[in-house]
């Protein structure tokens, strides 16, 4: 994020180009984790397992991108899991029950989720409700609405090609869903790094009053960020629907915690103004690899919970220490 003096060449340049500041610690952690798992299991180090991990982080990755922007401006969004469920149910309803073509149904799902985000944004800016509370309320509201669409039951019966998008690996490599996630990451990275609006997010997160006096329309940007985050959750929902070939209103519970953890592990500060997308990618990979690795190691589910907690705290504490030492 910073324009370091030594940044034209070498690691400085890399670090600068990929906004790695604050994420080198996690990156090292990720590499260590991968090295350990490669030695400890037969099955970790293989193309197929790598592709599996990509599959498995698709939804988390997309949620985390939206969450990165929200946290960058100093906010938080607890509603992403519920909004994802809402988007899925709208998709299922429009496509399967109402018989609309998939294109229209997807637009409807994204619209519904974007609207939920816009409402959160309005509560936060116009009504000065703290983001934590506004999105907590939206979490409850969106979940309720999602459940009301079918009175709690699931919807199945999507067209065959829809599920194939999540299964067929084009060129033996990329599924459609993973491709979408990668595209989202690249677009978000370009936006955050090279767009004027991307830099504005940093200013808002740094100090909203300074940003306002610098001519940035803080309220508008805030509403847009929450809308984008919710629409991305909606997109995550569409991809998840493709992957599961079914939709249900209870999906996505506690996803917000995973997304927030990924963002923070990736070096974005919860107080806003520092961090970025590349760090988030690393955070998402750490969570994804950890889950995958613990399964491959056949660690009992209860012990997994303990280990994941410890890794989260270690990842964040390590970065703090690195900074303190400098």
């Amino acid at each position, binding site marked *: 994020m910073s324009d370091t003096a030594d940044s034209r060449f070498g690691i400085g340049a890399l670090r600068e180009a990929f906004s790695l500041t604050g994420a080198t610690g996690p990156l090292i952690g990720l590499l260590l984790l991968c090295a350990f798992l490669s030695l400890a299991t037969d099955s970790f180090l293989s193309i197929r397992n790598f592709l599996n991990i990509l599959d498995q982080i698709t939804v988390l990755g997309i949620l985390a991108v939206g969450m990165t922007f929200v946290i960058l401006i100093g906010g938080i969004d607890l509603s992403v899991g519920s909004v994802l469920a809402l988007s899925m149910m709208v998709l299922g309803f429009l496509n399967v029950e109402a018989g609309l073509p998939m294109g229209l149904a997807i637009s409807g799902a994204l619209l519904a989720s974007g609207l939920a985000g816009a409402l959160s944004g309005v509560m936060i800016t116009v009504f000065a409700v703290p983001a934590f509370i506004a999105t907590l309320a939206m979490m409850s509201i969106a979940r309720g609405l999602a459940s009301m669409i079918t009175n709690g039951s699931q919807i199945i019966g999507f067209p065959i090609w829809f599920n194939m998008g999540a299964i067929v690996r084009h060129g033996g490599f990329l599924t459609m869903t993973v491709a979408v996630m990668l595209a989202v990451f690249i677009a978000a990275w370009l936006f955050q790094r090279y767009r004027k609006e991307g830099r504005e997010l940093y200013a808002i997160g740094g100090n909203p009053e300074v940003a306002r006096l610098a001519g940035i329309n803080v309220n508008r940007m805030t509403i847009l960020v929450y809308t984008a985050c919710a629409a991305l959750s909606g997109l995550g929902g569409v991809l998840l629907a493709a992957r*599961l070939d079914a939709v249900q209103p209870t999906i996505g519970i506690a996803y917000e915690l995973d997304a927030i953890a990924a963002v923070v592990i990736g070096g974005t500060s919860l107080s806003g103004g520092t961090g970025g997308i590349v760090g988030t990618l690393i955070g998402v990979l750490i969570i994804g690899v950890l889950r995958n690795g613990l399964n491959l190691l056949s660690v009992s589910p209860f012990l997994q919970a303990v280990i994941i907690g410890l890794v989260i705290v270690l990842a964040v504490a390590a970065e703090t220490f690195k900074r303190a030492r400098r």
Partner: protein
Amino acid sequence: DDHVGIGIEKIGLAVPNLQADFFNQIKLGVENYAASLGIEVITVDAKGDTATQVSQVQDLITQGIDAFIYIPAGAAAAAVPTRLARQEGIPVINVDREPEGEPGDTVIYGENVMSSYEVCSSIIERAGGEGKMVIIHGQKGTTPEVQRFEGCKMAIDENPGVELVAQQWTQMWSPDEGFSIGQNMLQAHPDLKMIFGQADGIAMGAAKAVQAAGLDDQIVVGGYDGDVAALESLARCDTPFVVTATQSTQAMGVLAVNSAIAVSKGASVPARQIPNAVLTDCENAQQFVEKHP
């Protein structure tokens, strides 16, 4: 003990939520029986989330399992795990539920409708065949919730003297929800005589609410599942919670392992295997505490 003939070394077991005793019992059934045969079991717990489960199944297959026991998580039974396993030629044994349109080689499930009919008939009989009744449901929209209501409704419809005065749903089938909802229902209907909780946790919570209101003598509570703690409670015969349907969970585990072995050998297994739940009350609870069916 000649294991050469078994043909499988590693079984993958995907459970929706180990925190529910029901699934925990199945897990124990599978693990204990498989251990006695020298088969390794790898268990993954989806914590109730379908998407997590799909990821976990990918990881199971990566580990080279020879058979896959699949208990779908969430309201949507995902078809993808079955497809993934099929691609690798791994036998799929469904337990409790099967995904629509993508059945496994066999499905083993506890019967819901008739058993809940029996539970409700039993509490109606104990209440003297008439009076006000409430139902505290499980998570709305899930298969057991729907079917257990269906069965209980049959019993209610057979008894014109029984009036279903209220219903409410829990989010997590949990005892604390059972307690609060039960307490509020008692408040709204002090002359209540029967409560059906769709799971033992809910029923035991509701029974505590009955005790708290001092209505032990007036109200009977029925549950479902035959959780260990519920059986222990029934065996003591001292609470309003008087009857449940004990599912043969350990037996289901054994059945699942045997089916896996059979399928991998190419033997035929029935498409559906439905061990009955056993109506359990104060009298026969103790025997199930000692040895869970």
